[in-house]
């Protein structure tokens, strides 16, 4: 029993290693994808901060939105992971994993954390740029505890795993590349705009506030903002619990539906 568990953990790590090795042969991908959040920060962030339309309390708007931009980078990497999975299935790569002696749960978890590998690479780039910008270039004041900044990495892992889980769930339900792509796009905007990434939740109309409360990204952004900006981690246990809860439910659902994808 214990040895089976050890073996499954090893399987998850192997699937993650596969992704890390893929990424190593493809640096360009990270560079290209990092541009988007930074452009977002520079353009959207600066415009909004000059108009001062969004009430962000004691902190500048750019400071407020920095964790949101990091969350966006992570979300966009992971939310399309289901397409890669459909691609892997069509190309025959997935068959290899499916006939290996690994449980469906470790397979799905391995794929979720594979998205995390890409998300971490992305986050490191984006975070570095934000930190550089915060030294007198833009009006960004980060919480000045390097340990807190380092702790954003596990949060990035968790957010991307949940987003990938959602994406994989769609992949198991919709099965074709085009449809999964369409749903990824359809889902990204509401996930992003109804989280607290760009403005405080209280700023939204009541029905969007309600959506924000079930949006896992809200909890991820809250954690990131606590670590990067305010240093206030009083909401962290709840945020953490919600994200882990989402991950567990998604992984179980995906493993149950995984067979569908191969039919």
């Amino acid at each position, binding site marked *: 029993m214990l040895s089976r568990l050890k073996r499954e953990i090893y399987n998850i790590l192997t699937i993650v290693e596969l992704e890390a090795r893929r990424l190593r042969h493809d640096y360009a991908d990270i560079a290209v994808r990092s541009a988007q959040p930074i452009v977002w920060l520079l353009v959207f962030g600066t415009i909004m901060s000059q108009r001062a339309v969004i009430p962000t309390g004691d902190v500048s708007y750019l400071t407020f939105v920095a964790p949101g931009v990091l969350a966006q980078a992570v979300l966009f990497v992971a939310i399309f992971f289901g397409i890669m999975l459909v691609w892997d299935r069509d*190309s025959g790569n997935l068959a290899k994993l499916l006939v290996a002696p690994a449980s469906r749960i470790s397979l799905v978890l391995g794929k979720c954390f594979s998205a995390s590998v890409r998300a971490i690479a992305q986050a490191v780039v984006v975070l570095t740029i934000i930190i550089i910008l915060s030294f007198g270039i833009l009006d960004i004041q980060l919480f000045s505890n390097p340990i807190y900044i380092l702790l954003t990495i596990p949060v990035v892992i968790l957010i991307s795993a949940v987003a990938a889980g959602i994406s994989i769930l769609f992949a198991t339900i919709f099965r074709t590349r085009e449809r999964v792509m369409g749903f990824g796009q359809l889902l990204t905007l509401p996930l992003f705009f109804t989280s607290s990434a760009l403005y405080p939740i209280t700023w939204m109309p009541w029905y969007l506030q309600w959506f924000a409360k079930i949006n896992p990204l809200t909890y991820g952004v809250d954690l990131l903002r606590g670590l990067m900006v305010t240093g206030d981690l009083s909401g962290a246990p709840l945020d953490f619990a919600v994200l882990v809860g989402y991950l567990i439910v998604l992984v179980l659902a995906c493993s149950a539906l995984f067979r569908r994808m191969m039919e």
Partner: protein
Amino acid sequence: MKAIEIRDIVKVYNKSVKAVDGVSFDVDEGIVFGLLGPNGAGKTTIIKMIVTLLSMTQGHVSVLGHARPKEDYFIRNCIGYVPQDVSSDAALTGYENLLISAKLYGHRGRAAKEMCEAILHQLGLWEARDRIVKTYSGGMIRKLEIGQAMVHDPKVLILDEPTIGLDPVARKQVWASIRELKDRTKMTVIITTHYMEEADQLCDMIAIMSIGKIAVIGTPTELKASAGTGSIVLEIKGTPPEFPGARFENGVLTIPSDDCARELPSCVAKVASSGCEILSARIKEVTLEDAFVKHVGTRIDEMDQWSSVRKTRKLARRMA
């Protein structure tokens, strides 16, 4: 114990396409078993049901005594599978592909590394180990995939169309790799193919399939014998002597024979001594092609065309 036991399996896709329609067969341990049939016959579907990728709509499959789907985990531990489509990761090197496979089957650290290196040497891929698989030729990829399927010394190796799309030279190399592996490890090998020559060359036992059903199962020799005997064909000037069952038309004498090569000299001598002049002599063996025609009723390449036409039409309809 049988390597594979299959009883009355049926597979219906999307509640509408009946891809496999009541197939049963056994595969003895230690042989090379071939599923021979045109594109669309249902070979891949049967293979996917054996390797635990697809569920059966009806029927039973067991591998080395382990029944599907209850013992899928055991089955996965004892089979190696090379899918019809390219399954190596094109973005990784050959070595990395092997390493990931080795780790998925529980090898770790130094042992995993050494095993991968040994396999690379065996398959003649050592020089190319650090190249991205994207740059490999079709034959190299197939060999790498076979290597990946062998990391756990499987008792049963399953290859779906191992030489599809390969040039004749690469095809012969892949055949050689399969034979070498089989002789060294004594494992059971199952292949699917739509190449007559491949089935004839590699297989100890062949099941001929058409449209979801198995038409006949036998050794290559049995199948060929079932399609009749070979014949000695002599082109002659003059009137030949009598041979039992022989035909003579337009100066061509066709003599049926169970053992053409052995009987050719005596036939030639008999005709020559009767005073006829022999212009040419050749042997026409029965081929698997003849067996296919006898049991299925059409030539395999005609069926191929028919099914690919159907497939393209279906695709066109879906896109419209």
